[in-house]
């Protein structure tokens, strides 16, 4: 990838007239001034200094969009060929910055305030009260603990996914059928899964899985009554949806391994078992680590199934951080506290992922 220098060298003689350059600069500053002006007027309107009776902040939004368009356009006007290159990345960058960075900054402000959306008082800055409340909130720590348990389940998911990928990579008939069948759980929405499997198939009286469990000698197959069992059920459902994802990444890795490496191992007299552990598995390490890292990222967002199936119960035993914050907001409609919890979660995730990626990087490198 192009780390240094352009891969495409274009020699163009940009003759940008001073007028064009001036115009390009002018539209940026003019639209920026317009944006600032609109924002100022709206702020004054909100605080009651002047009254225009604007119902919402839409005018500022439109001014912001106009400013973004002018910024992109002026790149071409001012910088010519170089500007056209910037135009490839700039729209996406502006989009992400406006939708992530601004809300994050805004979120930091709400995180330190008491803001009940349903009360008329509006936002009140309350310093570190939310932090203190979080520190004393056993349910939040419990949810964080649950996340660790959910993350550990990935090891089992990975083993199953690897096994399935090996099966699909073997010489079999009807590979396309099996591949499609194995892929389908990934296509189903977690909400539908939590209904189809969680509510209907685990139903105590007639659900086929419950009946199977009874047939196998479990008298009272309740899947959500004890904390351990409920957690386990959630893990299984989530695994069912996402195993195809890891399986396909591993399968792609397996297919990229040259066949002669395994053949060489076989000629040298390695049993299939040793051949797997000493040839295939080490070769698959980079792919495996990528698959697991991505799976961890997805797992950290786990919420839909929990919200729909147990809503955290029994007694918060199945709560993930996301589902806990969702309930916290739904029950008390306090955005301040919920945002603080989410921010703390984000910080923890960033630390965790950075360490993990460093470790994975170091672990992968000496092999090659």
């Amino acid at each position: 990838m192009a780390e240094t220098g352009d891969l495409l060298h274009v020699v163009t003689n940009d003759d940008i007239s001073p007028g064009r350059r001036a115009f390009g600069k002018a539209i940026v500053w003019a639209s920026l001034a317009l944006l600032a002006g609109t924002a100022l007027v709206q702020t004054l309107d909100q605080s009651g200094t002047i009254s225009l009776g604007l119902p919402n902040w839409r005018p500022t939004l439109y001014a912001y969009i106009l400013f973004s368009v002018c910024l992109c356009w002026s790149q071409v006007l001012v910088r010519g060929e170089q500007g056209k290159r910037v135009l490839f990345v700039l729209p996406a960058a502006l989009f992400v910055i406006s939708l992530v960075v601004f809300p994050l900054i805004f979120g930091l402000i709400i995180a330190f305030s008491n803001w009940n959306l349903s009360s008329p008082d509006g936002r009140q800055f309350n310093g570190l009260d939310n932090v203190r409340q979080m520190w004393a909130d056993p349910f939040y720590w419990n949810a964080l603990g649950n996340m660790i348990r959910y993350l550990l389940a990935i090891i089992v998911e990975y083993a199953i996914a690897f096994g399935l990928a090996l099966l699909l990579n073997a010489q079999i008939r009807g590979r396309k059928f099996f591949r499609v069948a194995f892929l389908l759980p990934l296509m189903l929405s977690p909400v539908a899964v939590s209904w189809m499997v969680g509510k209907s198939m685990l139903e105590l009286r007639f659900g086929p899985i419950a009946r199977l469990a009874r047939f196998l000698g479990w008298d009272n197959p309740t899947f959500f009554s004890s904390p351990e069992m409920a957690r386990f059920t959630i893990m299984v459902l989530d695994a069912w949806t996402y195993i195809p994802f890891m399986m396909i990444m591993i399968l792609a890795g397996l297919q990229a391994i040259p066949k002669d490496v395994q053949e060489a191992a076989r000629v040298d007299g390695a049993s299939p078992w040793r051949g797997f552990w000493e040839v295939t598995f080490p070769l698959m390490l980079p792919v495996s680590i990528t698959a697991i890292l991505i799976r961890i990222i997805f797992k950290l967002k786990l919420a839909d199934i929990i919200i729909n199936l147990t809503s955290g119960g029994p007694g918060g035993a199945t709560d993930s951080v996301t589902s806990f914050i969702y309930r916290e907001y739904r029950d008390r409609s306090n955005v301040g506290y919920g945002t603080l919890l989410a921010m703390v979660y984000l910080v923890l995730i960033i630390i965790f992922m950075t360490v993990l990626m460093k470790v994975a990087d170091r672990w992968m490198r000496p092999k090659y």
Partner: protein
Amino acid sequence: MTDQIFHDHPHDRPARLGWYASRLAIYGMLLIWAAICLFPIFWTITTSFKMAPDVMKGSLIPWVDFTPKWLGWKSLGLSPDTIGSESTVRQEFMVRFMNSTVISLTSSAAAVALGSLAAYGLSRFSYKFLWMRNPDISFFFLSQLILPPVVLALPFLVLYKELALLDTRIGLILLYTLSVLPIVIWIMRDQFAGIPHELEEAALVDGLSIWGAFLTIVLPIALPGMVAAFILSLVLTWNEYFFAALLTSTHANTLPVMVASQTGSQGISWWSMAALSFAAIIPLIIIGVLLERYIIKGMAAGAVK
């Protein structure tokens, strides 16, 4: 010596037996997992055709255990005898269905457009923005992937309220585009890196501009990758529940929200729930069966370098 040509050596016979045993084990495991994957879908389809007593008995096989009836589909207004008449449930379902379709198609298209451009730029030119160079910019885009939706959810709730974007399609489209953008960039970066840049150089020498070369030369080659990214985005946005549940209430509800809101009521009517769930997943099942190779291509990108 000669008889070895015509007969299996005694040593080879157990090996052949072992070969059959391993075949049997492989197909056995494949079939078991296929059943695990497909049974819930089968269960949902059959339940949508069951009457109350059939559900309670837990009947499995249609026409053997029970006689299929259009009960579930009738309650949605989608059975043969109700499809012609007016039905408020069907209207609501169609509104949600259209919401889901419009939102997921638009946001996937937007993400693929923005993401492809950015990925192409990052794979061909070197940028410098403040201290950030290409790897940093790439990382900035990809790092959005670890951002959990819950961090953005509440700030967006407040922002959207101020901007009157709550419960609108455009509000959800913006968020969904944002959430799939890193995945698109990840896939497309891989795609563009695989296209030799001599192609564009030739085009540039022949007098095309950079954008002309991108649109007429590179884009057609990268099309399969873009389709893969588009379909993967479609799957993710169609199934998204968290933002939709928080940010919509009556107008812009998507199908997952509709499915979820039915389950809360007491005395679930299993057949109509099954019909609704099945109607919600059928578009993706069709996509999965028909376009499976694109999905696999999309997910495999980046896994293998």
